[in-house]
């Protein structure tokens, strides 16, 4: 029998993997991918609580999170492309100045 605890544990593991990815990688593209993992872990938690509480609101919030993530990825990738054109690298350490 799969309980809510299984989903909590799985979501915690995925969130921690994503958190380690965000904090340890220098590649900006990899940071953005790890952010997607964080969103996926919280989405799983929302749907699991929605199922176990009998409330549809959690699934609706997942729907909105997906929409916001799509916008965020579009902007983030545009910034990465710009950064590559200016600095010809996508290592986060190379971003030293506030104004280009």
């Amino acid at each position, binding site marked *: *029998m*799969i*309980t*809510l*605890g*299984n*989903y*909590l544990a*799985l979501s*915690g*593991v*995925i969130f*921690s*993997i*994503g*958190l*380690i*990815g*965000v*904090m*340890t*990688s*220098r*590649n900006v*593209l*990899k940071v*953005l*991918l*790890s952010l*997607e*993992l964080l969103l*996926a872990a919280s*989405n*799983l938690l929302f*749907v699991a609580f929605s*199922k*176990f509480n*009998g409330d*549809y*609101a959690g*699934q*609706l919030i997942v*729907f909105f999170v*997906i*929409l*916001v*993530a*799509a*916008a965020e*990825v*579009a*902007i983030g*990738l*545009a910034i990465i*492309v*710009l950064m590559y054109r200016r600095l010809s*690298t*996508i*290592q986060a*350490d190379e971003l030293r100045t506030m104004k280009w």
Partner: protein
Amino acid sequence: MAPYFFYLFAAVLIFASLCVVLARNPLYNVLSLVVAIFSLSCLFVILEAYFVGMILLLVYAGAVLVFFLFVVMCLNLNTITITSEQQSRFRWLGSFVGLMFLSSFFLASKSFIKAQSMDPSSIRGTIENIGKILFTNYLLPFELTSLLLLIAIFGIVSLAQGVLDTGKDN
């Protein structure tokens, strides 16, 4: 039958997300995130959230990650990142903080599960059920997301405008 499927897709999800963080080739990072999103969508189907699982497959695996792939191929990152990939100075600190987060999360969720043991309810997240609530109680946030997407389009266009202007200067 369902427990085996849960463990199968959970194992695939954990393995794929490890690949996202650990693989050195950016192409493999993106493709393993596609696998992770696919198994997450299967977990949503096990939880009977059919609509959200379908949207996740269509929007995430279909659109967002293909966009990632497009950028990786467009920038031709493979040669650059593999040769100059050095790990961050904060690698051990970051891993330590992540593992501390994991252990504290487990402690917190353990006490939570003890407090209330819930049984799964009988709700089914079909398109009909989700749509009814989306267009009645949650109509205002749904309309506001269109505003958000419009602002995102403005942002991208203004960023691309900067690229065009610098291209003219050169």
